[in-house]
């Protein structure tokens, strides 16, 4: 159950936070000509964790699809407030509430800090106990709530965790999403960046990441195991949301495929709203305590 929460937390965080301290919060940053690869990746992290917005609300569905085509589905409602507050190191806070019947009532609160070495603080409302439980952070290489994404794919990977090499710039050939059968990013101008983890040995040796030149969003990646064999692909469809005259690049579909098992996880974000003026008080244990299910 805790892992299930973490999955969705991560999804929220996908629109959450990274490290790029040099980049100012609540601004939209996009790649510019002449930027070096580190600058591009700082923006990619910034976009990944939607540090440009003050707050966001959305609902989401996650589909777990095994190689035989059997589908399981989970639904959530999520809220996040971006703080970027140095006084208490607070980057942002998330609340994820599960709404599908089997896990209805499960809710989680997570605080993410600006310090890249610091783990998240997480609380879980467990319906079977009717109680709030503080939970430990999962390992970075663990599966994120049973999905095909790892914990660090979703929540914990920071800009500082990898070294980057620009392999080339190209127009992306396009990706056909297995979920909706649509082809995305065909001929999209992109940076192709090799990301190698500083931690060694690690469960992957490198990621090859395609970053959209227009938005800075990392929309496709291939992950390679320590023997340099590709074992995972991740696709993210970004849409631009116009909010108060700004263009917010936002992940609306994520598709992760484990090439070893044939299992896929698809996450679809919906009803996305930005800058609704959410109060920080919502992101407290008391909100979990009010859960009824």
């Amino acid at each position: 159950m805790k892992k299930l929460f973490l999955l969705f937390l991560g999804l929220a965080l996908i629109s959450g936070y990274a490290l790029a301290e040099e980049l100012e919060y609540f601004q939209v940053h996009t790649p510019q000509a002449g930027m070096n690869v580190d600058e591009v990746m700082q923006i990619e992290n910034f976009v990944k964790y939607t540090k440009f917005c003050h707050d966001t609300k959305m609902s989401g569905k996650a589909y777990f699809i095994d190689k035989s085509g059997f589908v399981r589905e989970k639904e959530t409602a999520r809220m996040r407030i971006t703080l970027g507050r140095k006084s208490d190191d607070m980057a942002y806070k998330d609340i994820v509430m599960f709404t599908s019947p089997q896990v209805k009532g499960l809710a989680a609160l997570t605080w993410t800090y600006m310090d890249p070495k610091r783990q998240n603080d997480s609380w879980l409302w467990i319906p079977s106990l009717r109680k709030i439980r503080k939970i430990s952070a999962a390992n970075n290489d663990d599966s994120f709530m049973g999905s095909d994404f790892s914990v660090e794919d979703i929540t914990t990977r920071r800009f500082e965790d990898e070294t980057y090499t620009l392999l080339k710039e190209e127009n992306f050939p396009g990706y056909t999403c297995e979920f909706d059968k649509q082809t995305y990013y065909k001929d999209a101008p992109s940076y192709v960046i090799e990301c190698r983890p500083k931690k060694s040995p690690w469960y992957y040796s490198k990621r090859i990441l395609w970053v959209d030149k227009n938005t800075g969003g990392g929309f496709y990646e291939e992950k390679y195991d320590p023997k340099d064999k590709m074992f995972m692909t991740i696709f993210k469809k970004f849409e631009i949301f116009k909010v108060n005259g700004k263009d917010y690049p936002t992940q609306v579909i994520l598709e992760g495929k484990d090439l070893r098992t044939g299992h896929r996880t698809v996450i679809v974000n919906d009803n996305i709203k930005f800058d609704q003026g959410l109060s920080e008080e919502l992101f407290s244990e008391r909100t979990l305590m009010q859960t009824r299910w």
Partner: protein
Amino acid sequence: MRSFLAILIALLLVSPVYANDKLTLSGYLKNETSLRINHLNGDLTKEKNIVELSGEYKIKGDELVFFTRARYWYDAAYDARAKLDPAQHYMGHVQRTDWLRDCYLDYNKDAWFLRLGKQQVAWGQADGIAILDRVNPVDLSEYWLPDLQDIRIPLWMANINYTPKLNSNLQFLFIPDFEQSTSAPIGAPFTFYSYTRYDNWRKAQLAMGSTVDENIYFPGKKLENSTFGLQWSDRIGDMDYTLNYLYGFYYSARNTTILAAGSGGPLSSWKVDRAFKRYQMYGASFNKSFTNSGPMQGITLRGDFALYKDEPTYIGDPTIASAKRIARWDNVFWLIGADRYIFTKYMLSMQFSQYILEHAKEKSKGLPAAQQYPMNAYTYGYADQVENIFTIKLSTQFMNERLRPEVLWSFTDDNNGRLSPKVNFEIMDNLVLTLGIHYFYGNLYDSNGQFRDENQFYTNLKFSF
């Protein structure tokens, strides 16, 4: 049953009418089956079918919300097995108003949050051990095996919360309702040994021509007999803490037996009283996750502490299961727990707790030496002055969380405990199968050991909607 059906029908009828953002319905159907596996005899000890329906109606957005939850169950095992028949009346189907699990109105505005109605409130950080979690009485008819939300007996109360500053909360509970904690009757799988021993004694006395005068003294239905609770929650640095206070009647009361007339042999008169006593609980809890890098990173520490002032403690002769008086001792229960992921995807959770009685023995009330011992309320065996309790839980997942095994081992320093492995398998989105075993071991007079002949294999099948 009729009331339950009325609620059920009403909820179902209104659902299409208000099928919008205001009304949300949810529920489940569940079958719980268990087999007694001692000596491989395979007695069917539970064949429980449960239906639960919950409804939430937003009267005024999130500011004013009505919520209710109703549950009905029927246990066919009490029809099927003659051995269990004596317990059929209590264990065969839902009792009295227990079908109404929640019924309250939420009011949420600015710093205030009020929950008024029938509900349960859980305090503390302990897993599976009720240290601060004493706001509601408990139904132990299946010992501590069910989920805690099903063990707690909901009460009518006013639950008033005020947030004076970010991340803090002051909670005040006013509980005019009183329900006693319940347990399994004679003849059920998890009947406390103290009950069985008393029942045997009572039957022997009646057979000898003695009389047994049984009396129960409930708290009077007066305002001053209400229960009051207070909890302050806040943070110091990265640590959450609470301060707790509860004032009210102890929800369980055991028998005390006094010889009223005669020699104690045939034709004697006995007076057996069960009286509920008032007590106070002073407590605190904390939790802290070590988030900064270092050797402690990834560990969550949590703890509970409670001082039960004037806690009813039963004094008597454990060799004959006879409590003679209720002492009002200041007992302490505390716990520390740690959780951490080990290797990849294995969550290890450990707890250590101590229940400490104020005295090892009652000396000052003129009781004979053999009758001066504090007694284990479950078995009427000897109670240790310091009971050390350990729990270890290891859980993980496979098949993208479709398969979730877990092992819980709870034990004391008296070589008495329970081992409960289980596995959950998600057949479909809304259909989950649980298979598990409860294995008890230890002395017959210890809390877990008393059920050493009740080891069981169980299955749960739950369909949620």
